[in-house]
């Protein structure tokens, strides 16, 4: 494990998480959550958990984002907080 890379990606993960819950647009929140999941899969590849990384890249960054985007299209993009 390279600890500099680990620390940088961990900061990205935290900022993507904060952005995903503070943005005032649900489609933007869905996209930022996809970025969060992708950064998380990079973090696990760095930490040596390659099988978890594969699963997160396909399931977390792929299927979850599709679920969120389709749910936003079926409902509304408007949010108050």
């Amino acid at each position: 494990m390279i600890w500099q890379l680990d620390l940088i990606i961990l900061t990205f993960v935290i900022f993507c998480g904060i952005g995903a819950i503070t943005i005032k647009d649900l489609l933007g929140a869905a996209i930022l959550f996809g970025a969060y999941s992708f950064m998380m899969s990079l973090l696990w590849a760095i930490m040596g958990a390659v099988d978890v990384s594969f699963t997160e890249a396909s399931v977390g960054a792929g299927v979850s984002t599709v679920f969120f985007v389709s749910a936003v299209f079926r409902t509304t993009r408007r949010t108050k907080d």
Partner: protein
Amino acid sequence: MVDLLTIIISKYNYWGYIVLMMIGLYAMIVKKNLVKKIIGMSIFQTAIIFFYVSIGMKKNATIPIISHGHDGGEHAVHAVDFINPLPHVLMLTAIVVSVATLGVALALAIKVYQQYNSLEEDEIDSQIKVK
């Protein structure tokens, strides 16, 4: 004192885990929008998975794949040289469970929207009280 500070700083993965978990908990409790609550739940789940993968991490070790496995395993395997794969295998199940939970939660949110024409918790509450 310096030793304590070194210990605290060198465990930065666990501090990141605490921060992520608190972000998820804050979103689940404070945010009024249902989709924001669901995003908070997913962040909470990934934080716990992150904690478990951090437990299995090891310094100066490689990924748990035996590179000379084709010769029938005649060589001895030193467990010190490999990252502990047990938390990874457990967390694979947790990822699959988390995407199933996400699908069910979003389906319920869509049904709530069809019923009340809103995703905001306070608007739904006021409509329930009127009825």
